């Protein structure tokens, strides 16, 4: 009798457990994946041993390796309001479609006068588009204005949410807006300092410098 069973080995492998596992992993990665947001430039931050996470609510200035500043706000409500104020100040008109497009950008680095044209581009065109970053000099202090308005609006949104939560007697979870600076390893420190000086000019002194985790144990 054992001979019979030897004669008939199963010709096809049972793949069910493997497939189960594969789909389990697919589902896991699909649900946990948070996609890297498209950025106009690649910024490779230096490593550190700090293990603090980036706060949820932040105003970000990214500085690429050649020192161009880019600007972004995480809170959508504050972002929309900041945009309105900047458009009003510089007398620039945007269509609804362009505004929607703006909301999708994580960071941008163009002069506000170029903004309508920049927003009409496709992602691929934007990648190729040569910008000089958000203008940041005493004659054209757009970066300072963006930061100032964003700080005011983000704080207003924060306080409003706090009040609303108080009225409804709900738990209040929103974080206070923080100021994050992200720069490339190769960025010259003076370009970073210029941005920091822009912040200190409007009395913001505390920053979160974005780094990547180097790992490893603490040096002894």
């Amino acid at each position: 009798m054992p001979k019979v069973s030897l004669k008939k080995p199963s010709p096809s492998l049972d793949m069910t457990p493997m497939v189960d596992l594969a789909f389990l992993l697919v589902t896991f990665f699909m649900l946990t994946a948070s996609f890297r947001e498209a950025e106009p430039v690649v910024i490779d931050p230096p490593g550190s041993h700090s293990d603090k996470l980036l706060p949820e609510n932040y105003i970000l200035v990214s500085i690429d390796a050649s020192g161009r500043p880019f600007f972004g706000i995480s809170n959508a409500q504050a972002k929309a309001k900041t945009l309105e104020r900047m458009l009003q100040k510089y007398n620039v008109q945007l269509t609804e479609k362009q505004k929607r497009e703006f909301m999708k950008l994580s960071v941008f680095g163009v002069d506000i006068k170029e903004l309508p044209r920049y927003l009409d581009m496709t992602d691929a065109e934007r990648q190729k588009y040569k910008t000089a970053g958000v203008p940041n000099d005493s004659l054209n202090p757009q970066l300072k204005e963006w930061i100032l308005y964003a700080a005011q609006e983000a704080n207003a949104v924060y306080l409003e949410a706090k009040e609303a939560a108080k009225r409804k007697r709900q738990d209040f979870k929103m974080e206070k807006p923080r100021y994050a600076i992200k720069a490339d390893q190769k960025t010259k420190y003076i370009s970073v300092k210029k941005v920091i000086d822009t912040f200190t000019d409007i009395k913001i002194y505390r920053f979160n410098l974005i780094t990547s985790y180097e790992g490893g144990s603490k040096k002894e």
Partner: protein
Amino acid sequence: MDIRKAKKRGKKPSARIDMTPMVDLAFLLLTFFVLTSTFSKPKTMEINYPAKPEPTENVKPPEVKNGLTLILTKDRIFYYKGEFILPNDPKGRPATQLEETDFSINGLHKLLVDLNKSAIEEIKVLEEKAKRKEIQDTTFKRLVMEAKGKKEALTVLIKTDDQATYKNFIDVVDELNLAMVGKYVTVDMMPQEYELLKQKLGNQ
């Protein structure tokens, strides 16, 4: 009987579906998500910058007992201890000379740990106490802050020239955090220091 018959009949036609395309697809998706997902959220380092003094204000610099000045240039790091002394000092002290160190464990890290010994030892004792639950978490944090802020604890000034990169700066701040240095600040370089740095760089 009936059920048995039905079962036997059902077995005969090939019950297996060819799963190969499905598995192919599953693995393709798996590979895609593994490669695109970003696991680590970016980490941050909190840092405070000094407020700009008002031009009308005449702020006296605080007295520093245990001071160190780090001067950064491209991938190199110089330092001197204590205050800056010009040549021909009226009190006859020797003029400040820059010394060079590096970013290795035996360089900057050792230098900082040696200078900040008193604070590090104090914090170690506190950590032990916290581990044995002798002091509460909030008390522990406050005491650590106090230990870092003591007069004997190291105070570091970071100065950079126009060649220093952001990576150099972050490396230094990281080392300061690891060496439990609580008092550090970035300031502009004095012209005399810049002269010394140029000499150093020119010599090599």
